């Protein structure tokens, strides 16, 4: 391990932001806090994005590691102990100074502080605590702070940090325990889920306290989140989505983030490196499905199944569900209940709420729906207004699919000509395999796991 000392702040920032960028969470939402007049900063409930980096991702927080020293050796991680990379560590004051000076210039909404495991989980967590404590008390910072809890750190430390941070997250890293064993040999499900449970319980207790004492200190007011890497291990979308669902239900998580696997190390335990790039489309479909779980009342088992375990590349999960359930359509917009309206492609949760409100005042027609934000070119195949469909359309899989594809994203013409049964075979996993097979004549990565 190469330890570089006397580095300039710019060099440190370069190394420690570069090393933190693979963490996907950057939201600053979930806390509404006014400034008390004695410091700097406040929080907006919806969060504020300040910029967009060259990859089109939002920049809201100063996302850095405290240090990229690490005693662990997670195969997928650039900072793993067996890598020969320049190492750096901030001091608490450096982190505070950067946060305040960036914040004053309105570059950022706050700080996202993660870290490699330096010496021990407790040692690292203690450094994080000291930094955040300083930032909140000495520097009087009242903006947003997101802290990563270090797996294996003591309960007491995690709790102390939780009273200073707005959000905490503990990365699940990989969807299954086997994946973790293989790629993150020093971590295990227990050291990850224990702190997650602790944060959950402390939040519950804190809610009780706040009901009695309004001014009691708040514990992680913006809730906790986690993330998992997609495509480094052979789990299918169905497994991943089930894991996410369990996390929402059993751990009250605010968000689960998905991070398309990016090759930074060569390791025999990792998928073979290809030119295909990270599985961004797959990640996108998972986010869409995640949205359906959280806001649309869907369950994982409605969207995928053992038999059909991966999302389609060409159709989004909601359309896909509707095409599989044509017997429920068309739906009369003036009568359907809210839960069913939510399931119509082209009707979002906001427009569904508007529909329910507006139809109390009168009978709705297609024109009204349009004004309420319904995307008619998607919805028209699935709804009636006053018993009438918008055009003469058939309630038939192939027919609707062909029409939806022609309004959807850029889809190659050869694909538009296929029928539903053929297209539904095209999930991202198979799609990639085929791509790899034809483009490079290589064996696809997934087969290597299974084979």
């Amino acid at each position: 391990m190469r330890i570089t000392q006397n580095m300039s702040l710019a060099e440190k920032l370069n190394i420690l932001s570069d090393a933190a960028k693979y963490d996907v969470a950057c939201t600053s939402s979930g806390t509404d806090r006014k400034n008390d007049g004695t410091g700097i900063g406040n929080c907006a409930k919806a969060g504020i994005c300040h910029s967009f980096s060259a990859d089109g991702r939002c920049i809201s927080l100063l996302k850095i590691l405290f240090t990229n020293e690490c005693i662990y050796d997670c195969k997928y991680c650039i900072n793993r102990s067996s890598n020969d990379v320049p190492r750096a560590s901030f001091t608490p004051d450096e982190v505070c100074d950067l946060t305040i000076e960036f914040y004053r210039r309105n570059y950022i909404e706050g700080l996202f502080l993660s870290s490699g495991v330096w010496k021990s989980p407790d040692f690292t967590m203690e450094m994080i605590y000291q930094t955040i404590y300083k930032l909140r008390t000495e520097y009087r910072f009242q903006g947003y702070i997101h802290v990563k809890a270090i797996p294996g750190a003591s309960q007491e430390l995690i709790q102390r940090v939780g009273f200073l941070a707005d959000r905490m997250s503990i990365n699940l890293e990989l969807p299954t325990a086997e994946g973790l064993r293989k790629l993150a040999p020093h971590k295990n499900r227990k050291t990850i889920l224990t702190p997650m449970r602790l944060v959950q319980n402390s939040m519950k207790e804190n809610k009780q306290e706040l009901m009695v004492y309004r001014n009691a200190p708040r514990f992680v007011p913006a809730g906790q989140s986690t993330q998992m890497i997609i495509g480094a291990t052979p789990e299918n979308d169905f497994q991943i989505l089930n894991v996410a669902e369990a996390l929402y239900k059993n751990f009250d998580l605010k968000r689960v983030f998905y991070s398309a696997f990016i090759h930074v190390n060569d390791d025999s335990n990792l998928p073979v490196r290809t030119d295909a790039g990270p599985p961004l489309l797959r990640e996108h479909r998972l986010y869409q499905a995640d949205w359906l779980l959280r806001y649309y009342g869907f369950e994982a088992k409605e969207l995928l199944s053992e038999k059909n375990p991966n999302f389609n590349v060409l159709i989004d999960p909601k359309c896909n569900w509707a095409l599989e359930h044509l017997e429920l359509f068309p739906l009369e917009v003036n009568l359907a209940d809210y839960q069913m309206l939510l399931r119509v492609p082209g009707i979002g949760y906001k427009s569904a709420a508007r529909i329910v409100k507006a139809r109390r005042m009168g009978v709705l027609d297609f024109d009204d729906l349009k004004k309420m934000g319904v995307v008619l070119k998607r919805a028209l195949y699935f709804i009636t207004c006053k018993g009438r469909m918008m055009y003469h359309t058939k309630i038939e899989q192939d027919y609707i699919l062909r029409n939806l594809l022609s309004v959807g994203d850029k889809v190659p013409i050869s694909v538009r000509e296929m029928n539903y049964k053929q297209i539904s075979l095209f999930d991202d996993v198979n799609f990639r395999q085929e791509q790899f097979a034809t483009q490079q004549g290589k064996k696809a990565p997934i087969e290597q796991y299974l084979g």
Partner: protein
Amino acid sequence: MKRVYVCTDSLTGIFSAIYDAWKTKLGENEVGIALRGSVEQELFCEYVEIRDNEKKAIAVENLIKRHLGEYAYWNIYHTILSHDSKKADVILGMMLEARKIPDSTRIMEHLSHPKVRRMFEISRKVSNEAHYYREIVRFRELQNGILFSEIEPRNRMLSCLGEHFSDRFPLENWMIYDRTHQMVMVHEAGKQWILVHGEQIDEKLITNCSVKETMYVKLWKGFFDSVAIKERESYERQRQHLPLHYRKYVTEFQEI
């Protein structure tokens, strides 16, 4: 003959005109308001010049707040800040419609009325722009310690930023300079913000930055570059979220 009141493009001006128009009890097609400087002369119209009148303006403000409610007032306020040249007429039309319906406080739900819908659109554009500037205002520290920022917004929405930044930086001296409308928002540490119109800004003073300013700009630009993931690069997505038009004064897109 239709009567059109002509007023200045200001809150006081527009409210003064509404006051007189409202008093006539004329219907939507018989009365209108135009802004001085953007009157489109029509046949069979009588034009009446209106002078700014604080008392009338306050009366109208109270009328709106009392009878149409806070939400409608919020929309009217944002509409007045817009660069739309027909905005005053739109507000009048919306208010005349509110007079007709049984519950005036629900006027903003009547989106089927063209004036109400138009007002909804205009006020949304303005509040969106204000929200945008909450994100992309960038301050630099001048030699005298003042945090200074300049912007070129389409609408006169500077006042919408006051509460946000005063709450955020209560102990700082800061200024936001709207170059389009030649206005400055000034906040002195520990005090309320104020708006200053027409004041000449000393261009030399505002380029004279503190010793550490360049260092933090460099640190920020370095961070901005290193945080992007090469394998996911997408300038198109970046442009979708942050159109080139808005980047002029945004530190990370400026050359040092």
